[in-house]
C-alpha cells in the first residue's frame, strides 16, 4: 500500500526519535543514505556560519533552518534532476540538494543581485518571500508542463502560516481542478514568526486540507529524513504517472520545528519557552539518522570525522567565493526590469551615470 493512502491524520514515521527503524525504509543505497546524512550535516553547519556572518555584519538578515534539515533534504532528494523546485525563503538545504551552490544562497542574503540568478542547470524557481505566493506559480508551471507534454513533477515548499493565505487555497484548488503534477510540501515548523500553528487554523492537521481539494494529503514526521524521502518519492511518482483512479497533486505536511529564530532579526524567547525548544531538540534529525547509519554499519567515527571536515571546508570555500564577489553595478537595477530597456528607463539610467561620473560612487555609499 502506498503511504499516501494512509489518510491525512496519521503521522508517517520510519525512524523513531532514537533512530530505531519503526516503518518500512525507502529503497536507498548505502551511498545515498550517507549522502542524505552529509547534506543534513552540511545544512546545519552552513546555518551556523550564516547566522554568525550576519552577527558580524558580513551578511543581511537571514532565516535560519536548523531543525528542518530532514524535511528539506529528504524531500529534495526525492526529485529527479528535471523536476522543478519552488522554494520559500528558508529552503537553503533543499535548493542545495537540487543544484543551487551554497555561495549563491549566501550572495542572495548578502544582497547581491547576482544571488537572485539561479544556475541554468538547476530547475529551481526564484526564492519567494511574500508568503504563499509561489503556490499558484508551481501550479501554473505544472499545468504548462502538462500542456507541453513534459512529465516532470513540481515540488513547492511553504510554511504552516502560508496555509492561511488565499494563494494557498487558490493554488491548491486550481491544482485539483486541473489535475497538475504538483507536490505541495508544507514545512510545519509550529510557528509563523510569533504565532503558533493552532492560531493559524482550527484544522486538526494541515494535511487534511487536501481532502477539500480532492487529492491526497499526508502527514509525515518532518524530522525523520527517511519517512520524508519515502512520502515525497511516492508523491512525486504519482504526480508524474498516476494510476487511473489517482489524482496527481499531493499535500504533504512535514511536522517539525525550527530550533532557531524566525530570522536573525527576531528573538524567539519572547514568544516560546525553552522547555518547548528542548522537547523538540530531542527529535533532532541528525543524531537520529547518524544512530541508524552507525548501527547498520554504514557509518563509523572515521567516516563521520571525514564528513565533518569536508563540509567545513565546503562552507568556508563558499563564504570566500561569496565575499569575493564584485560589487553590483548600478546598471543592473535598470537593465533587469524589462527584456528591452524602454527609453524612459534608459534616460533615468543615463541621469544616474552622469551623477556617478561627476561625484564618484563613494559619495553614494555609506560604508
Amino acid at each position, binding site marked *: 500500500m502506498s503511504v499516501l493512502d494512509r489518510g491525512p491524520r496519521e503521522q508517517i514515521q520510519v525512524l523513531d526519535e532514537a533512530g530505531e527503524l519503526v516503518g518500512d525504509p525507502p529503497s536507498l543505497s548505502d551511498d545515498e543514505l550517507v549522502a542524505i546524512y552529509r547534506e543534513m550535516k552540511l545544512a546545519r553547519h552552513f546555518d551556523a556560519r550564516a547566522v554568525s556572518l550576519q552577527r558580524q555584519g558580513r551578511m543581511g538578515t537571514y532565516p535560519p533552518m536548523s531543525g528542518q534539515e530532514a524535511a528539506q533534504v529528504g524531500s529534495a532528494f526525492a526529485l529527479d534532476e528535471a523536476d522543478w523546485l519552488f522554494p520559500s525563503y528558508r529552503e537553503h538545504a533543499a535548493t542545495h540538494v537540487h543544484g543551487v551552490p551554497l555561495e549563491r544562497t549566501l550572495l542572495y542574503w548578502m544582497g547581491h543581485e547576482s544571488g*537572485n540568478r539561479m544556475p541554468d542547470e538547476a530547475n529551481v524557481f*526564484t526564492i519567494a518571500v511574500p508568503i504563499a505566493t509561489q503556490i499558484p*506559480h508551481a501550479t501554473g508551471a505544472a499545468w*504548462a508542463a502538462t500542456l507541453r507534454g513534459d512529465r516532470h513533477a513540481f515540488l513547492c515548499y511553504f510554511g504552516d502560516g502560508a496555509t492561511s493565505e488565499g*494563494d494557498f487555497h487558490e493554488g491548491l484548488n486550481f491544482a485539483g481542478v486541473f489535475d497538475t503534477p504538483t507536490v505541495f510540501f508544507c514545512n510545519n515548523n509550529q510557528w509563523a514568526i510569533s504565532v503558533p500553528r493552532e492560531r493559524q487554523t482550527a484544522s486538526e492537521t494541515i494535511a487534511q486540507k487536501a481532502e477539500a481539494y480532492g487529492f491526497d494529503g499526508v502527514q509525515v514526521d518532518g524530522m525523520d529524513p527517511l519517512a520524508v524521502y519515502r512520502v515525497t518519492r511516492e508523491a512525486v511518482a504519482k504526480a508524474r504517472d498516476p494510476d487511473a483512479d489517482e489524482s496527481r497533486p499531493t499535500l504533504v505536511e512535514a511536522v517539525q520545528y525550527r530550533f532557531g529564530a524566525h530570522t536573525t532579526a527576531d528573538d524567539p524567547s519572547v514568544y516560546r519557552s525553552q522547555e518547548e525548544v528542548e522537547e523538540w531538540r530531542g527529535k533532532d534529525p541528525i543524531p537520529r539518522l547518524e544512530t541508524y547509519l552507525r548501527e547498520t554499519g554504514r557509518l563509523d567515527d572515521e567516516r563521520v570525522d571525514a564528513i565533518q571536515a569536508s563540509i567545513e571546508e565546503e562552507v568556508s570555500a563558499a563564504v570566500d567565493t561569496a565575499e569575493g564577489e564584485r560589487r553590483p553595478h548600478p546598471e543592473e537595477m535598470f537593465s533587469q526590469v524589462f527584456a528591452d530597456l524602454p527609453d524612459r528607463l534608459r534616460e533615468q539610467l543615463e541621469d544616474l551615470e552622469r551623477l556617478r561620473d561627476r561625484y564618484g560612487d563613494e559619495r553614494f555609499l555609506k560604508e
Partner: protein
Amino acid sequence: MAQATDQRTATTTFREAIRTALREEMERDDGVFLMGEDVGDYGGVFEVTQGLADEFGEERVRDTPISEAGFVGAGVGAAATGMRPVVEVMFSDFLGVSAEQMLNQMAKMRYMFGGKTDMGITIRTTEGGGMGAASQHSGTLHTWFAHFPGIKAVAPATPEAAKGLLKSAIRSDDPVMFFEDKMIYEREGEMPTDADFTLPIGEASVEREGEDVTVVATQRLVGESLSLADELEGDVSVEVVDPRSLYPLDTDAIVESVEKTGRLVVADESPLSYGTHAEVVARVVESGFFSLDAPPQRVGVPDTHIPFSPPLEDEVLPQAADVRTAIDRVV
C-alpha cells in the same frame, strides 16, 4: 507603423480584431494558451474568445475556477517556465484580487531572477463605464499598471491597434497589460489581414493631423475626439494623437505634436487626480514647455465612482462635449 508586407485590410470590429490576434498567435506558437473565467465554450462574457475553444480545444482555451490570484499566479509560473499565457481578467475592477501576483510577482519576476527569466504573460482585461454596470464593473485602472515598474500597459482604440498590439504583447518577453474598453467592442475599422502584422509597443499614432490643438486621447475617447475634430473643421484644426501604449509612452510623438500646435488637451477615462493625464502633461512640460501657448487641460472622470444611475453615469463619463469645452478653454 505597420510591419506587414501584405497591405490588404478588412473592415472588422474591435472585438473581432482581438479574436483574430489570439487565433493567429495560437496558430503560430504552441506555447500560447488562454485561461480565465468563462473563456472556454461560452466564449467570454464579452464574446471575445468565442469559437476559440472549438478551434484549439479546451486545454488551450481553459475555463478556470473563479480565482484571480490563482490563475494570474499560475500564468506567472507558466510564463516563467517558457510559455506565453494570455490570461483574461473579466473586469479590471477585479485586478485588485490578484494584486500580489501582478505587482509583486509578474512585474518583478525578471528582476528577482537576476534578469534571467522571461515573463511572456499577457493579461487581457476590460475597463470603462457606459454600460450601466455600476461602480464595481466600470472602472478604468490602467494608470496603476502604467505607473508600476516592470509592466507594459497598452490601451488600443481601433481594430488595427488592437490586433497589432495584442500580437506584440503575446510575443513580448515582458508582462503586458492589455486594456480593452468594453464600449468599443463593436467599433469598426480597417484591420490589416496579414498574419505577420504587428505594431510595436511604445509607439503613438497621429490619428488625424491638425494645427491648432493637440488632443492626446485614449480608447473610446479617440473615436469621440475624431468625430469632434470633424465637427470643428474650418473653425479649429484639431490634431488627435493616440498614445496606444501607456508604458512605454511615446513622449517624442506627443511633444512633437505640441511643438506644432502649442496647445494640449489630454482625454482619458481614468480619474483625474495623479493619473495618466498628469503624466502626459508632465512629460510635455519637461520636454516642450516653451512651445506651450496655453495651460494644458485634462479631461477624465472626476475623483468619484461610476454611478449605477444612467443619467448620473452619463454625467460623470468624459464625452466629446467635455473635450470640446477643454479645447474652447485653450484656443
